[in-house]
């Protein structure tokens, strides 16, 4: 009996566990992998933005190593303590690099910093797909990952070469139960000019090209990193010119920043389900026509995995959904 009170082996049911925007958080990724067993999912889907955003240098010093996390100084006297600090950094989605005092200034050079980031991001992603293979390699659970707007496009190769993980953006993929997953990890332009952004027009073209590959639109699932505009899934803080959130008497001013192209595609195709992310603070569920659109949000920096359990029924479509914070 599953925790949901549904008998295992219910052949009409396909259970998906979806999470997104883990942004390098080791703890969130491990929880996502472990969620397959806890929730008895048939398919795990990880939306885009798998890589972290910041890097903390751990500098060798006399008798140990020093660094700062959240503005607090940490000192490690031995290898065990060093690993503890590194684990803490990885848990919250940051990268660490151990440097000698002589190498420390290298991080001030943009090219060197980029190089350290590239290596750290690749190494962590490689370790993740290895973990997924160890835990999920039996094939009982199908595992899908993609990149988001914040991820380096070069990392797609790591996912393509992974054994137990399917890179979801290359093609329309079939889920258990005969559902078809269409994945697009690009976003519309952001104030940060990130690696995988497209104008609305180009994003519409990419989505259209993918949707053309569907054999049965009525069983489609859209895994689009960018949420549809004008929903409660795409409300982000309005920022001023200095990238500070704008505040008024009611709190932060929130405005819709989702994609028109994504919304138009959902309105036209009317897939069973829309899985979205990108806007961490805008978790929620909303229907567009018959399509249930979900953004589970993200709390990666706290090591909390936000996700959505969705049960699909062969005849009834989306039977139940539930947002979780694991």
């Amino acid at each position, binding site marked *: 009996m599953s925790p949901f009170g549904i008998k295992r082996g219910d052949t009409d049911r396909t259970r998906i566990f979806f999470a997104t925007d883990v942004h390098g958080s080791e703890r969130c990724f491990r929880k996502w992998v472990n969620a397959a067993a806890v929730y008895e999912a048939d398919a795990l889907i990880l939306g885009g933005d798998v890589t972290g955003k910041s890097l903390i240098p751990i500098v060798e010093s006399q008798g140990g190593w020093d660094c700062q996390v959240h503005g607090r100084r940490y000192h490690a006297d031995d290898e065990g303590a060093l690993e503890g600090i590194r684990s803490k950094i990885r*848990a919250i989605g940051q990268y660490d690099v151990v440097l000698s005092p002589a190498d420390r200034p290298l991080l001030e050079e943009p090219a060197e910093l980029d190089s350290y980031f590239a290596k750290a991001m690749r190494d962590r992603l490689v370790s993740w797909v290895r973990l997924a293979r160890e835990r999920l390699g039996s094939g009982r659970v199908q595992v899908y990952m993609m990149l988001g707007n914040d991820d380096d496009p070069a990392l797609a190769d790591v996912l393509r070469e992974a054994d137990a993980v399917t890179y979801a953006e290359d093609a329309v993929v079939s889920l258990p139960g005969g559902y078809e997953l269409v994945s697009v990890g690009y976003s519309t332009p952001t104030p940060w000019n990130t690696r995988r952004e497209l104008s609305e027009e180009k994003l519409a073209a990419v989505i259209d090209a993918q949707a053309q590959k569907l054999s049965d639109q009525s069983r489609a699932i859209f895994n689009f990193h960018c949420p549809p505009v004008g*929903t409660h899934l795409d409300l*982000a*803080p*309005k920022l001023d010119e200095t990238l500070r959130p704008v505040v008024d*008497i*009611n*709190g932060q001013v929130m405005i819709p920043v989702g994609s028109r192209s994504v919304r138009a595609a959902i309105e036209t195709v009317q897939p069973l389900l829309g899985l979205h992310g990108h*806007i961490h603070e805008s978790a929620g569920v909303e229907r567009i026509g018959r399509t249930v659109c979900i953004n589970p949000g993200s709390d990666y920096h706290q090591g909390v995995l936000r996700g959505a359990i969705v049960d699909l029924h062969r005849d009834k479509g989306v039977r139940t959904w539930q947002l*979780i914070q694991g």
Partner: protein
Amino acid sequence: MADTSGPTDGGGGQEEAGLYTRQSSGLVRDISASSNIGLNIAFVSIPLAALVATEAPFAFPGASPFWVTVICAAICIFPVLLYSLFTAVMPRSGGDYVFVSRTLHPWVGFAANFNIVAWYVLVIAYFAYLLAPLGVSSAFSTLGSLTKNATLTQWATDAATNKGIEFGLGAAVLILVGFMMTLRLRRMLRVQGALFAFSLLSVVIAGVLLLTTGRAEFAHDITRFGGNYAKILSDAHKAGYTGGGTFSLGETLLALPLAFASFGYAVVTAYAGGEVRSPKSSGRNAMVYALVISGVVVAILLGLADRTFGVNFLGSATYLSNTAAKTYPFAAPSFFFYFVGMLTTSTPLLVVMSLSFIAAFVVALPVTFLIATRSIFAWSFDRILPDRLSDVSERTHSPLVANFVVLGAALIFLTIIVFVGGGFLQLLYTAGLAEILTFFVVAIAGIIFPFRRRALYESSPINFRWLGLPAISVTGVLSLIIYIFFFVSLATQSALGANATVGIIATVVIAAIGIVIFPISYALNRRRGVDLSLAFRELPPE
């Protein structure tokens, strides 16, 4: 303002020492300290906090409104800091629902949050009710007396005594606010911002008038409104008022719950804001700074009121107004801004101040409305309440069903307040008593958070200690002591009316509804194949 919105991750990391960031979305800067503090001050509602001026010396003869304000603002620092610390580690709208659900259990989180949100809705209704007897009545009374307009004076009396007018005005403003909430959010916020700025004018004008007017001038001024300073004092004492003697520290301490109704709620941004983490001290301490600033402003205002009006006068006038109406000489009930209005003969100034004070009542409504609808959304997303409650308008994207639920509940409460009366007339303090039940749970969650959610605590920006103990645990203990003090004060002092039978019944019924909904929802969801207990269960992180 440039439209540079985008996804955020609660960054601020760009400014943190020893941290390097790459070009990626969400790395926003903290909310500016001034914005953060201003936002919190807005929730304290300084104009309403000033009402302590008349209530404290009436209900607690010998109490000093000035010291009530100073002491209450000072001790409220700990509960406010507790919410600040929780907001720093769980920077999500939802306030105690999120804190308690994650720390203790979703059932406890829902019950605690439902309790406080239900009472917020009740307070919305109470503010709408007060609009006629306090806001509109005082405005008409002051203007009528000054301009010798008998019609305005009669309207003032009607607004203060006619139940039909009280209900009609209250219902109209609730429906208006409900309509505002169905508009596109940005348009509604513009209206709201303007109302808030206008509401602060009454505070500024009051400060200037009190600063420039002495006791003798005031005694002269009130004769224009039919009052006699000395006679009011003597009539009140003849009628049984015992205040006006020496300062009493004991009575002052007993009166603290009056100010708690304002200062204890400098935590409300935890519900309405906080999507972006502000881990550095300026962000974390913004609620505390706001509390201190509000306390200083109100204390100055009440200190000036003591100098100009005299605590004895304020207590005596309120005593007559509340208990011996036949000898009360004025057309509107006794309250702070009414007497401030008597200090000027400038009609435009009076009009502005009166309307500004009315705005202070109105401005509190949409904010609280928004908190209630956001909570309903969160409960709906977590499947505790039906999905239907999070339906939104296709055109404006506003949460229509949630708005109707809040509006309907507020109108029901308004009907009870106006036509049933009884203990509901002291509803503000009953609400304080009931809401402290939720605060108890939050304080307990704060105490045990570092031990129950060790990993989350260790990786959080509030991972620091005082006296060798986690700071949030120490703050939780101090907050619990303070909440117990206020709870006992409200529960045992009949002068405040919080312990009236109808209030106690309402407190128990609302708390019970919150406690019962979750297991019912759990059972119903279970039949559909949804296990609510999974919503906050920690997945193995290994």
